[in-house]
C-alpha cells in the first residue's frame, strides 16, 4: 500500500467549509431574525402632524388584512438588509467551487531541520531547508478556512514549532524561524510526536493544543531529504504521511552519466555501510546514489596503553562522490577559554579518497596533561561544509576520589593501588572509627567523593556518593534486608551488567559466610546463590549502591577466595569506571549535536554556564536531582565550554560533532528513480512500519474560493440600500 494520495478528494461543484462552529452559527442565525424583529420594533418614527389621520387609519385597516406579509414584501430596505445578511452568512459557510472536498483538515508540516538540510545542491543556491520551507509554504497557502495546520521541526528530536492554528501569517512566520541544526534525523521522534496528536487513544496530554478529532485524520507532510532510518514496528494509526522529497531528484539506475557503482544495484557494499542503514537494508539492493560530499565521520582520541601521557587522534573520512578526492586534513588547536575557532596549525595529512570509500587518518599529539581543544578540517569544497570539520576536546585527566572505609584489608587496598587503577583513582583509606569524624562527614555530605567503599563496616549516614559495600548493607533505610547464611554457592551472575564486565570466574569460588539479600525495589541482582541473591546494584536518587553480601576477610582469615581470582581486580576496576565516573575524567568524550548531553563535573555549585565557540552563552543549566547537568541547547557542532566560575580553571570543555553517516550522505531517499520497475520500486521508499511511503513533490490543490464574490454582492447590496435610503426610491 502506498500512502500519501489517500486524501486527494473527489472534485465536486460546490462544497462548504465554514470556519465557524455550530454555536457560532446559532448566534449568526439569529441576526436576520433580529433584523426582522427590529424592523417591527423600530422606535424612531418621524412624527408628522397631519390634518386628520382618519383616512390613513382607514387605509391601514385595509392593509391589515394581510399586513404582515404586505409590510415585509413592500419594505425594500428590509429585503435588502436581509439579502445582505443572508449573503454574508452564505459567504461564511465557505463555499467553494471545484475544490478538494474536505472538511477542516488537520495538517502537520514536519520540517526536517537536520544537518543535511543545510546542504546546497547548487552553488549558489538555496539550502534544502529553504526548499522545504518553500514547499511547506505552498501547503500553507493552499490551506482553506477550517483547516488547521501545525509545524513540527525534527532533527534528532522533534519539537512543535507552532500548535494547530488556522492563522496563516503565524504559520509563515514560524516556518521562517526554523533554521538548520547540526543534528541527525530521527523519523521515529516526529512520528511519535504526531501520533500523540493524531491518535488520541495513544497519547492524550491535556493542553497539547487542539487535539485532532477522531474523525479528522491529520495529514502529515514530511519535508525531508530522507536522511533517516526506516521506522520498523511503528503503527501509523490514522496518520497519513506524505513525504515531500527535497533535494536533487534521483537518477535512474544505469542512466548515470558518471557510471561506476551508481549504476550497479548490487555493487559497492561499503557504500551500503556508508548509507548507514544499520544493516536493515543490507542486501535490499538499493542503489547508493552518489552525492557531492566529503565528510569526517569519526574523530576520537586514545591514550597509548604503553605511554598514557601520549594521546593519539584517530579519524575517519568518507567520500560520497563517485569520483576520487584528494584533500588535506589539518589539525588545529585552541587554547581553552579563548573564543574563536582553533587556529593554531599543529599538523596536516594528505588524504586520497577513492570514490565512495572511507579513509582513516591519525595524528600523534605527544604528551598532554592539560585540557586541549582540537579541530580537524578538510579543505574540500562540497555541498555540506558542516561535516568537513570535527572537534575534539581532550580533557584534563581527573582522578576519581575513592574513600575506603575498612579494617585494613590488604587485598582490597592492593587492588586499588595497581598500575591500571592508579591513574584513575585517588584512594583515601580510613579506619572505621574515623567515619564519624566531622571532617569526613562533611566531605561525604558535600559529595567530595565519587565512591565510598564499605569493607565490612556499615556506614551510618547516607553519603552523597556511590557506594560499594562488602559484607554489610549499604547505609540508608532503602537498602533492603538480609539474613546470614553459611557457605552459599554462587550459581549465576549478571555478565551483562557493566560492573561484571569481563568477570567470568565466579564459578567455584568459596564463601564461608555471607548475607542473602532481599534487594530493594528496582534493584538489579548481580550474583545469585543457591540460597538467594548475594549481590545487587540499586539506584538511590542519582547514585548507585552496590552491595556484595559477603565480606572479603573475617578477622585475619579469608572469608572468600574471590580476591585471589582474576575477576576481583576486574570487578574493582569496573566499579571505579562505572561508579567513579572515571571514564569522563579521561576527557575524550564526544557528543552528537542536538542530543542531550549529561555532564557530571565535580564542581561545588549547582549551576553551569555553557558557552559556544564564539564565547556566547548558550545555556545555563542547573544541577538535576541526579547530580548531573543536562545540556540541551548544544545544537551546533563545535567546542563548548562549561563554566562554573570566572576563573580559567573553573571551566571544562566538550566537543559536539555531527558524525552521522546518514546526514553526510546527501542522496535523496524516498523517491523512486525513473525507470525502476514497479516491483523494485518499494526498495527506494521510506518504510514506516510495514508501509513504504512514496515521496512526491507537492502540487498545491487549487480551489476556487466562493466566499469573496458573495461578500462583494453583499457589499453591492449595501450600496443599493444606501442609494435607496437616501433617494427614497419606491418606499
Amino acid at each position, binding site marked *: 500500500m502506498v500512502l500519501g494520495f489517500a486524501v486527494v478528494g473527489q472534485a465536486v461543484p460546490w462544497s462548504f467549509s465554514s470556519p465557524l462552529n455550530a454555536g457560532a452559527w446559532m448566534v449568526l442565525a439569529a441576526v436576520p431574525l433580529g433584523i426582522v424583529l427590529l424592523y417591527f420594533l423600530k422606535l424612531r418614527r418621524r412624527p408628522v402632524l397631519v*390634518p*386628520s389621520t382618519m383616512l390613513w387609519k382607514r387605509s391601514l385597516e*385595509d392593509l391589515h388584512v394581510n399586513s404582515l406579509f*404586505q*409590510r415585509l414584501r*413592500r419594505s425594500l430596505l428590509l429585503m435588502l438588509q436581509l439579502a445582505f445578511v443572508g449573503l454574508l452568512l452564505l459567504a461564511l459557510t465557505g463555499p467553494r467551487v471545484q475544490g478538494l472536498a474536505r472538511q477542516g483538515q488537520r495538517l502537520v508540516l514536519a520540517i526536517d531541520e537536520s544537518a543535511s538540510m543545510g546542504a546546497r545542491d547548487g552553488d549558489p543556491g538555496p539550502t534544502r531547508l529553504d526548499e522545504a520551507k518553500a514547499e511547506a509554504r505552498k501547503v500553507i497557502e493552499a490551506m482553506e478556512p477550517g483547516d488547521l495546520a501545525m509545524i513540527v521541526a525534527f532533527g534528532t528530536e522533534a519539537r512543535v514549532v507552532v500548535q494547530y492554528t488556522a492563522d496563516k501569517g503565524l504559520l509563515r512566520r514560524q516556518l521562517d524561524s526554523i533554521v538548520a541544526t547540526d543534528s541527525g534525523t530521527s523519523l521515529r521522534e516526529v512520528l511519535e510526536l504526531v501520533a500523540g496528536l493524531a491518535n488520541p487513544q495513544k497519547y492524550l496530554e491535556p493542553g497539547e493544543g487542539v487535539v485532532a478529532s477522531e474523525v479528522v485524520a491529520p495529514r502529515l507532510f514530511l519535508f525531508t531529504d530522507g536522511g533517516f532510518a526506516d521506522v520498523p514496528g511503528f503503527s501509523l494509526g490514522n496518520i497519513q504521511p506524505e513525504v515531500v522529497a527535497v533535494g536533487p531528484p534521483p537518477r535512474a539506475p544505469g542512466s548515470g552519466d558518471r557510471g561506476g557503482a551508481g549504476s550497479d544495484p548490487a555493487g559497492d557494499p561499503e557504500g551500503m555501510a556508508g548509507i548507514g542503514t544499520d544493516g536493515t537494508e543490507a542486501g535490499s539492493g538499493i542503489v547508493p546514489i552518489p552525492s557531492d560530499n566529503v565528510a569526517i565521520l569519526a574523530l576520537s582520541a586514545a591514550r597509548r596503553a604503553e605511554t598514557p601521557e601520549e594521546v593519539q587522534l584517530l579519524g575517519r573520512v568518507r567520500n560520497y562522490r563517485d569520483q576520487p578526492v584528494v584533500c588535506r586534513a589539518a589539525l588545529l588547536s585552541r587554547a581553552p577559554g579563548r573564543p574563536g575557532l582553533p587556529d593554531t596549525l599543529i599538523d596536516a595529512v594528505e588524504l586520497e579518497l577513492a570514490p565512495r570509500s572511507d579513509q582513516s587518518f591519525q595524528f600523534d599529539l605527544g604528551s598532554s596533561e592539560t585540557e586541549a581543544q582540537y579541530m580537524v578540517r578538510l579543505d574540500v569544497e562540497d555541498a555540506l561544509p558542516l561535516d568537513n570539520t570535527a572537534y575534539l576536546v581532550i580533557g584534563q585527566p581527573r582522578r576519581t576520589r575513592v574513600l575506603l572505609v575498612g579494617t585494613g584489608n590488604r587485598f582490597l587496598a592492593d587492588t586499588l593501588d595497581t598500575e591500571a587503577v592508579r591513574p584513575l583513582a585517588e584512594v583515601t583509606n580510613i579506619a572505621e572509627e574515623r567515619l564519624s569524624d566531622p571532617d569526613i562527614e562533611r566531605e561525604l555530605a558535600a559529595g567530595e567523593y565519587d565512591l565510598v567503599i564499605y569493607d565490612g563496616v556499615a556506614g551510618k549516614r547516607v553519603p552523597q556518593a556511590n557506594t560499594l559495600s562488602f559484607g554489610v548493607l549499604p547505609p540508608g533505610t532503602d537498602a533492603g534486608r538480609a539474613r546470614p547464611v553459611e557457605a552459599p554457592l554462587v550459581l549465576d551472575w549478571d555478565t551483562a551488567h557493566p560492573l561484571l564486565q569481563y568477570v567470568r570466574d565466579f564459578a567455584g569460588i568459596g564463601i564461608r559466610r555471607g548475607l542473602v539479600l532481599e534487594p530493594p525495589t528496582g534493584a538489579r541482582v548481580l550474583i545469585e546463590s543457591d540460597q538467594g541473591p548475594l549481590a545487587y546494584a540499586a539506584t538511590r536518587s542519582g547514585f548507585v549502591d552496590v552491595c556484595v553480601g559477603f565480606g572479603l576477610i573475617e578477622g585475619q582469615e579469608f572469608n572468600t577466595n574471590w580476591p585471589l581470582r582474576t575477576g576481583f581486580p576486574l570487578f574493582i576496576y569496573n566499579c571505579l569506571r562505572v561508579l567513579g565516573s572515571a571514564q569522563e575524567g579521561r576527557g575524550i568524550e564526544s557528543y552528537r549535536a542536538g542530543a542531550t548531553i549529561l555532564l557530571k563535573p565535580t564542581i561545588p555549585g549547582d549551576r553551569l554556564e555553557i558557552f559556544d565557540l564564539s564565547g556566547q552563552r548558550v545555556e545555563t543549566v542547573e544541577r538535576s536531582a541526579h547530580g548531573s547537568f543536562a545540556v540541551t541547547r548544544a545544537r551546533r557542532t563545535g567546542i563548548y565550554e562549561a563554566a562554573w566560575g570566572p576563573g580559567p580553571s573553573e571551566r571544562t570543555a566538550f566537543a559536539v560533532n555531527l558524525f552521522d553517516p546518514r546526514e553526510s550522505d546527501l542522496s535523496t531517499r524516498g523517491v523512486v528513480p525513473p525507470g525502476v520497475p514497479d516491483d523494485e520500486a518499494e526498495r527506494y521508499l521510506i518504510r514506516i512500519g510495514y508501509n513504504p511511503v512514496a515521496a512526491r513533490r507537492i502540487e498545491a490543490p487549487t480551489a476556487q474560493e466562493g466566499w469573496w464574490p458573495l461578500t462583494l454582492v453583499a457589499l453591492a447590496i449595501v450600496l443599493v440600500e444606501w442609494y435607496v435610503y437616501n433617494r427614497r426610491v419606491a418606499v
Partner: protein
Amino acid sequence: MAGVTSEPLLDPEFLTKLEQLELVSRKIFVGRMKGERRSKRRGSSVEFADHRNYTVGDDLRHLDWNVYGRLDKLFLKLFLEEEDLHVSILLDTSLSMDFGEPTKLRYGKQVAAALAFVGLVNHDRVRIDAVSSRLDEGLSGLRGRSQMWRVVSYLEGLTASGASDLAAAARAFAARHRGKGVVIVVSDFMDKRGYEPALRYLLARDLDLTVIQVLSQEELEPELTGDLRLVDAEDGEETEISVSPALLKRYRENLDRHVSGLREWCTRRGIGSILTSNQQPFDRLILDYLRQRGLIR
C-alpha cells in the same frame, strides 16, 4: 402653515376679484328688486302656486273655501314665497383646517368672504358663523355692501381651534335659526364621527344647503415617505405608518371614497356639493357655485 394666516385677507388681488364678482352678480340680479326673488319654497306671497290636502294643524286662513264649496273637500292654497333671502355661511375653523399652503382656513375665509360679498351686494341677509367643536355665533343680519368691512374683520379675527364636531354645531345652528334660506357649509368634512348627522340636522330645517369641501394639496396628493408617526392635529391621535406604494394607493382610494361619498350623499338629498382644493382660485369656485345654483349659465 401658521404664518400664512397672518396675511391680511383684504389684499388688493382679493379685492379685485371681489369687484369682478360684484359685476358678475350684478349682471345676474339686474332688474330684480328686493323681495322679488322667487323662492323655491312655498310660502305666503300672493302668487298662487298649488293646492294640497288639508291636514290637521294647517292654518285655516289658507283654506280654499271656493273649492270646499264646490267639492266639499278641504284644500289648502299654497303660494310661492317671496322672501328676504337669508344666506348663512358656516365656516369650519377646526384645527384640521389650519393646514395647506395657503391654509384651508384662509382659503375658506376667502370663500366665505366672497360668498358674503355676493350676498351683501344682492341685498340678502348674510350671516356668518364659525364652526369647530361647537357653533361660534358670528355676524348676523348683515345687509348691504357697506357691511363688507365687518365681514372681513370678523373673518380675519378667526383662528383655528378645537376639534371639529360638525354635528354639534349643526344642531345648535338648526335650533337657533328657524328661518329659511340658503346655508353654505365650508369645511374639509374630516370629521371622524362623519358628516351625515350634521347635514341631516340642517336638512331637517328645510334649508337650501350647499357644502363646499376644501381639501389641501397635502391631503389630495400626500408626499410622505418613510416610517412615520402621524399625529392628528385635532385629537392628537397617533397612527404609525410605513409609507409604501400600497398604502398610498389605499389612501387615494379612501380619499376618493370619502369625497365621492359626500358628493353622492348630498346629490341624493338635493344638496349641492363642491370639492375644491386650496390651490384652486376661489373666484372660480364662486362662479362654480353660482352656476350650480342656476343663477348664471
